[in-house]
């Protein structure tokens, strides 16, 4: 990754201009050419440095229900419980965190009812009671990783 890649990543995180020739607009800004920028983007996606280029849909507007949940998993069972969750399609991501509540995961389901069912299933499956922490208010969403 060189300086142009970095500038491209930083710039695209702010959003592509919605004009007929967006790459020409960016090429001017970044002192490059459309073809060069498109090549770079293609490479970065291929290499897995970037995992998506496109509209960042607001998942809540697409319908569905989400929650953040946490479990206090006994250390000896940690891997096994992580595998149980990994097998559930509605578990979107799962992090180990340094806390008594050591497993933190997101559930994405079609409805609130499906979230409740899923939490119960996890409880039955693991014998551990998940703490359900749904979003009550959003103050800021703006993932930005300056590189």
């Amino acid at each position, binding site marked *: 990754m060189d300086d142009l890649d970095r500038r491209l990543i930083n710039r695209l*995180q*702010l*959003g*592509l201009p*919605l*004009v*007929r020739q967006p790459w*020409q607009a960016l090429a001017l800004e970044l002192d490059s050419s*459309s073809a060069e920028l498109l090549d770079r*983007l*293609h490479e970065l996606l291929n290499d*897995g*440095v*970037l*995992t*998506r*280029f*496109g*509209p*960042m*849909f*607001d*998942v809540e*507007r*697409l319908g569905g229900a*989400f929650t*953040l*949940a*946490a479990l206090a998993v006994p250390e000896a069972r940690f891997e096994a419980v*992580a595998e149980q*969750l*990994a097998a559930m*399609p*509605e*578990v*979107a*991501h799962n*992090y*180990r*965190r340094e*806390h008594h*509540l050591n497993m*933190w*995961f*997101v*559930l*994405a389901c079609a409805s609130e009812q499906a979230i409740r069912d899923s939490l119960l299933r996890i409880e039955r499956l693991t014998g551990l009671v998940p*703490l*359900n*922490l749904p*979003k*009550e*208010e*959003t*103050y*800021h*969403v703006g*993932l930005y*990783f300056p*590189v």
Partner: protein
Amino acid sequence: MNKPLSEQQSLALRRLLESGLPLASRPFQALAEQIDAGERQVLEQIRQWQGQGLFRRVGLVVNHRALGFAANAMLVLDVPDALVDEVGRRLGKAPGINLCYQRPRRLPQWQYNLFCMIHGRQRERVEAQVQALLAEHLLDDLPHQLLFSTQLFKQCGGRFTAPAGACIDG
């Protein structure tokens, strides 16, 4: 002159956009060809969707670990209910805070109601950043904890929303 897309066309456009924007010098023209519409119609529809908040921007999902953002911290605070909106809005604007939400307390197991996500390259730097942030906003007296993630088991499954591409954050 610039008539809106038919319902069928806009549905088809939505589907196409779920897999991303074409890597073409005129991406909206490329999309238009696929749904038998005009470039301007497509651009107009996409601008409209963005204006309505269907998506925030046409941008990127970065593999933050591949880019060296290995320190992923969740800052949680116990903020008095009367202040949580104000504090949430302020922290949400602070540089380095990627996400900021209010969530319920679950006493006695969980006392915190404000959650902020911070991604950094080094743990020590993130710790220092959080200390400075709390001091700046006069929040250091509030009960708070910083929970670093040490392992990621599943990044972005979520079959239900997978087509949208964006990583969800509950």
